């Protein structure tokens, strides 16, 4: 060490050692994430501010062209296509998250009412389908909902779909695929919340309020809120950016923001526009995260929400 003068005190030596320790343990991972995620992300943001070249690749000079395009302004004046895509993404996310909550609540509660030795097995049963690849899961639904299958026949018989058509491809199939894909992500945190439930409070509430609905609303719901919010974060964010499910089940009618972004790259259309779409997606994600944190802090009685 090129350190002359007064001998460093034991305390400052310890501090140096601690700092070095921090560096050695944290630096490899931090540097990895910076090089392989932060820099690429920054580069992508840069691409969004570049000009679209004649064949879809980014070019200098810098411009805001791609954001204008994203907002719908092009050669032909304003057109609502991208706005539809954005609204469709929001709608699909909201509906599928809502449905996931409706299914996951009773399931998570039911598991906590079962005998303790069954619970890990029951949780495993809920989680195992998500261990297979999402392409395979979605393919399963393609099989189930195609024209001529019993489910499609049933829907046709009930007059829900036009004759000869299947339940897939349709935006209904996309919603279903999303619910299927994300159900476990909601059951797990809700189960954790139900497990910690203070039963004394619930019983008191049952005595206090005549209706079970009100008992639930006043005693159970607030206690499970942190789990619910964590679940919403785990479901809504990936659902909003989903690419595979609308691509396979939507059949060209259910385009979501993820598809808009992806086709700019995988269909060779317009990199800067795709990058601008990615920025929009990021902004929406962070707004969602921030909102969840705020709601969690306000309603959860100061309890910190995971993530």
């Amino acid at each position: 060490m090129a350190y002359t003068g007064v001998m460093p005190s034991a305390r400052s030596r310890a501090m140096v050692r601690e700092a070095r320790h921090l560096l050695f343990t944290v630096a490899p991972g931090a540097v990895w994430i910076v090089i392989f995620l932060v820099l690429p992300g920054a580069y992508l943001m840069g691409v969004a501010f570049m000009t679209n070249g004649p064949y879809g690749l980014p070019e200098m000079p810098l411009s805001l062209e791609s954001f204008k395009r994203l907002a719908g302004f092009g050669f032909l004046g304003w057109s609502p296509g991208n706005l539809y895509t954005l609204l469709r993404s929001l709608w699909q996310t909201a509906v599928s998250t809502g449905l996931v909550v409706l299914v996951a609540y009773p399931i998570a509660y039911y598991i906590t009412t079962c005998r303790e030795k069954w619970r890990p097995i029951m949780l495993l049963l809920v989680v195992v389908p998500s261990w297979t690849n999402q392409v395979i899961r979605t393919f399963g639904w393609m099989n189930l909902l195609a024209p001529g299958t019993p489910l499609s026949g049933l829907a046709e018989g009930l007059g829900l779909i036009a004759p000869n058509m299947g339940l897939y491809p349709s935006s209904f199939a996309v919603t279903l695929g999303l619910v299927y894909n994300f159900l476990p992500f909601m059951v797990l945190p809700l189960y954790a919340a139900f497990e910690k439930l203070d039963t004394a409070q619930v019983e008191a509430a049952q005595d206090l309020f005549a209706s079970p609905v009100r008992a639930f609303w006043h005693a159970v719901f607030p206690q499970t809120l942190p789990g619910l919010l964590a679940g919403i974060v785990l479901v809504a964010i990936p659902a909003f950016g989903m690419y595979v499910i609308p691509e396979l089940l939507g059949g060209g009618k259910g385009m979501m923001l993820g598809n808009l972004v992806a086709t700019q790259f995988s269909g060779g259309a317009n990199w800067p526009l795709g990058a601008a779409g990615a920025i929009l997606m990021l902004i929406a994600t962070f707004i969602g995260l921030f909102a969840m944190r705020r709601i969690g802090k306000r309603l959860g009685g100061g309890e910190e929400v995971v993530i």
Partner: protein
Amino acid sequence: MTNNKNILALSLGGLLLAGSVQAQENKLYLFNWTEYMDPEIIAAFEERYDVEVVQNYFNSLPEMFAKLNAGGVSQYDIIVPSNYYVPRLIQTGLVQKLDTSKLDNLDNVMEQFQDPAYGPGAEYTAPYQWGTTGLVYNTETFPDAPKSWSLMFDPEVNPEHPFALMGDGQVSMGGACAYLGHGYDCTDMNAWKEAARLLIETKGRETFSGFTDGTPALQQLARGVTHVGLSYNGDYLFFKEEDPDTFATLDFMIPDEGAEMWVDSMLIPAEAPNPDMAHKFIDFILEAEVGAQLSNYNYYASPNAAATPYLDEVLTKPPVQPSEADMERLRFTPSLEGDALQTFQQLWSEVQSR
């Protein structure tokens, strides 16, 4: 503990292996359409030149173009795009000129393919196969189907049976243009706008089932998912041969309003890892007997004059060789550039997102 070490050693070994395999010299990377190559031709080529051919596939030209831009330009030795993507490949510098001194069999190519409009002086391209894109429909559902795009675009002709358009926007737009009377190869702005409106309307119909690429469209038809679709004449015959029972009720037609004719060519990407072997491969495909074998396998017409004597009989009549009347209505898909391309992209993305 030892177990973990083994896993570590194994995977590090795998990583090294993966790194070194890519660097290996004696390989040829072929990037081709799906279901477009006879495995026996590959085997014969591998044997003759003691090389391993690695095949990758694409289902549409936009996909192929995107993959080249995403690093593929230095990873593939041969690509097989259609005519209307050749100019943009040349202009973006994604392909290199062919070294004709290495291509002895270039003389085998038919005269009309030797100086095609899309590849200046054939400096970059060697023809592979040619064919048409037409409507494939279920003859049980439509016993007297009109020879027309109305099977898709007119809700009165096809009120209640699912149909799919093509994923490649230029072909779907061309079809809409043809139906509207502007010709398949329209490039006029107003015609395009009208076609885009028609496509958006068509998408809104209950029986529209999606955008499908040419080869999978046939699978959908075979499985009854759709009753009308867009596909290629050769693929239709290929799958018909494979599954005659199912395809007995499917027929291929070229609408009277006009449709697409295309030529697929072999090109070498600008930074191909093994351009030498790529030339050998092109020359191999251009051999009379290999060219014939390819067409006999694929059911596509051969641009190879020398191959003619070896061709199966089915290749000499419709739908492989369109009738003269049909031939007059067939057009190349226009290759777009500049403002025209930008305008088209915007119209098409509008169609997709509605």
